[in-house]
Structures are given as C-alpha cells and as structure tokens.
C-alpha cells in the first residue's frame, strides 16, 4: 500500500545536508514495519516524508497506487488516511481531551458532534481514560497524553499509523502503557510504521525490521533473523552497542 522509489531528501542551503540517499521500499497492508538505527540516520525524516510533513527532494512515493508528491495530489485528503503520533505528543493544549479527539472528525469527516463524541468516549474507554474526557492535556501524565494522541489519530479512522519515536519522551515507567496500546493496535491488524528505540517492541510486534544508517536502508529482515543473525557489519555494531 506504500511504495517508495528512490527517495532523496536534503536540508539546508542548496541541499547541502543530504539526509536520505535513495530509499526504495514497499510496505504492504497489515505489515508492522519497525525502523531502527542510530540517531541522525534519517529514520524520522523518512517517516515524515511518508505523509509529506517533509517534502522529498527527489523520488516518488505512492500510497494506494496514487503518487503523493506530485502536483495533483490532495495532501490533506491523503493525510486523513495516515495517522501520525509524535515524540512530543503535540496534543492541543487549549482544548479538552474530548475536543482534541473530536476536532478532526467533526471538521474534516463531517460527523455530528454527537457521533464524534460517542466515538471518542468509546476510544477513551478502551484506554481507560473516560474519566479524563473533559480534562485538559496539562492535567495528564506523559503516558496518558501519548495514549490520547494515539486515539486522536485513530478517531480519523486511518489506514496506516505512523509512529515517530512515541516513547522517547516518556518517563521509563510510562513506556509500558503506550507500548501495550500499540501492541493491541498491531493485533487488530492495523498497518504500522514505527520509528523506535524499543528493541523489545521491535522483536515482539514487528513483522519486518528496517535498519537505517547514513540515509540508507542498510539491512532489512524479519525480527527473528535480524536480531539473531545480522549480516551487515554496521547492523552488528549497532546491535552490539544497544543490546549490551
């Protein structure tokens, strides 16, 4: 459902800093792709290119066979199909949790307030936070905020969920609750692309691991093979460093 061909991305004046150096990748429906790699390797940039939060410098990205980085594509329609979860949650601090979740469905999917609120309560019940519906984001813990951010994206009924280091800004004791919710989502068959440093999650949930280094996908494999039998030297170095 996602096809990436020869994706390049540069930043800075005249593209002096090349972050992505030619990425080819196909992600199928139902896959849980986990992207790992050292910082600065271009993982987040790659993920953000998938929903055009970063404009690719060159290359083609197809979602459901529709090229998204052409002139004709309606980026806003496309983004409604792709939920995104950020490292720093990015909940809207001036709105209640309920308004955070229902804003998109009401304004973009033409749902009535009642429909959207019923759906939001349903989702809040799932994560055990229905009592926080009328609280503001500042009254929630980090883990709670990130779980709300996830269901805010889910309320748009996306086909793919993109996760950009969703647990990196959390206190250690809150990482578990967020990962649990992501595991549940994975079980339900959601297509997921996850940038993370949580190797346990990658092993347990991932159907495919991509290892990125220096703007390229250096190695990809199923988790079992990837962790027990890495082939590339850079992968080996990285894994030995983090699995000590």
């Amino acid at each position, binding site marked *: 459902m996602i096809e990436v061909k020869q994706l390049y991305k540069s930043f800075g004046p005249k593209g002096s800093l090349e972050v992505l150096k030619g990425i080819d990748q196909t992600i199928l429906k139902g896959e849980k792709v986990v992207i790992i790699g050292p910082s600065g390797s271009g993982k987040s940039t790659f993920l953000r290119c998938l929903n055009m939060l970063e404009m690719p410098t060159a290359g083609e990205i197809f979602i459901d066979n529709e090229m998204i980085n052409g002139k004709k594509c309606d980026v806003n329609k496309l983004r409604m199909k792709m*939920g995104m979860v950020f490292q720093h949650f990015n*909940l809207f601090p001036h709105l209640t949790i309920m308004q955070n979740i229902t804003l998109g469905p009401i304004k973009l999917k033409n749902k009535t307030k009642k429909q959207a609120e019923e759906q939001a309560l349903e989702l809040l019940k799932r994560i055990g936070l229905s009592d926080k519906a009328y609280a503001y984001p*500042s009254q929630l813990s980090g883990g709670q905020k990130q779980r709300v951010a996830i269901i805010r994206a889910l309320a748009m009924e996306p086909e793919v969920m993109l996760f950009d280091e969703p647990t990196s800004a959390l206190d250690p004791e809150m990482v578990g609750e967020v990962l649990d919710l992501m595991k549940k989502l994975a079980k339900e068959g959601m297509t997921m692309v996850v940038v993370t440093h949580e190797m346990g999650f990658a092993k347990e949930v991932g159907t495919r691991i991509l290892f990125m280094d220096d703007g390229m996908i250096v190695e990809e494999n199923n988790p079992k093979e990837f962790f027990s039998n890495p082939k590339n030297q850079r992968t080996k170095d990285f894994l030995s460093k983090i699995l000590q």
Partner: protein
Amino acid sequence: MNEYLMKLAEDFKISFTNNFITDDRWQYLTKGLLVTLEITFFAVLIGIILGFIIAVIRTTYDKTKKFKVLNAICKLYITIIRGTPVVLQLLIIYYVVFATVAVDKVLAAVVAFGLNSAAYVAEIVRSGIMSVDPGQMEAGRSLGFTYGKTMWYIVLPQAFKNILPALGNEFIVLLKETSVSGYIALADLTKGGEYIRSRTYDAFMPLIAVALIYLGIVMLLTYLVNKLERRLSKSDRG
C-alpha cells in the same frame, strides 16, 4: 483652621459650578467621552482585524515562502506606520488622503488610529504565532487540516492567549493616543476639557476631571482584560 477649610470648600463649589454646571458645560465632557470611545472602539476593531491578517501573511511567508509580494507590502506598511508620529498620520489622513472628499472627522480619526494600531497589533500577533510550538502546526496538518484551518482552529487560539496582556496594553495606549484628535478639531474628551478651560480660564478643574475619566476607563479596561486572561488560562492549570 476650620474657617480655612470652609473657604476651601466654598471655592471648590464655586469653581465646580462655574466649570461644569453653568451653561451645561459638563456636556462637553460627556459628548467628548462618547466621541473618544467611538473612535477607540472602531479603531481597535480595524486594528485587530487588519493586524491579524498582516501577522498571518508575514508568518506564512516566513514558514512557506508564499505571499511574497503581500509580505513585502506588509513590511513596508509596518515600517512607515511605526516610523512616523501618529499625529502626523492623523493630519495626513484628514488633510491629504481625504482632502477632496468631505469626510466625517470621526471617520478620519477611526481610519487613522485603526491603521496605526494595526501595525503594532500585527507585530504583537506575529510574536504570538511564533510562540506556539511548531509541533502544533504539524499535528494539525497530520490530521488532515489545511494550513489555514490549522491556523484558525489550533495556532491562533493559542497565540491569542499568549498575547492578551500585550494586546490589552496596546488598546490602552490607543485609547489615550486618541487624545490628539484635537489636531483635526475633533471634539473628543481632551478637547472637551480644553474647551471648558478656554471658557472659564480655569485649568485645574477641567483638566483634572478629564484625567480622572481617562484613568477610570483604563482601569475598567485593565480589569476586563485580566478577567478574560483568567478565563482563557483555565486550560493551564495542571
């Protein structure tokens, strides 16, 4: 001692009667006050609307490089308005811009003070928009909102909350700035006090009265802004 106080009170009474009661002179103040409030109200309205538009154009250009020409115009506008005295702007609007059309003086003042205020409001709003975390824009866009809708539903409400104290201050300044309306012979509150003084040759009473009225309105404005601030900050309480 007692006699002295009695005489003081008697003087005050005579002076008060002479300045405000005789010939219904208090009406210069009340009518002037209405004119001042009218100018301020409509100028604030123009200032807010135009200021927000300019700020959005400027920040949109900074972020996306769209509106290049409009941005240049806005920048020039702000430079000119901030670089010249407001009295001069008022005179130019009334005697140059509206020279050939017989325009109401109040309208000329509203236009002049509105355009003046817009330049300052624009910079205040721009600082407010820049104070909102860029992640907010990204989160809005990632849900599928357009740039404009994200601005409207997500960024501007947060920006507005951040700039409320500065905006309140700007409008207090504006209210007091309208006191130069007398330059185009407009009978505002200050001019009203001046008029009484020219009739009675008594400076103390009318000028202090005018000062007290300005002070009262500013205190009321401050109170209202503070109240609004408290209401908007309910989402901050952790």
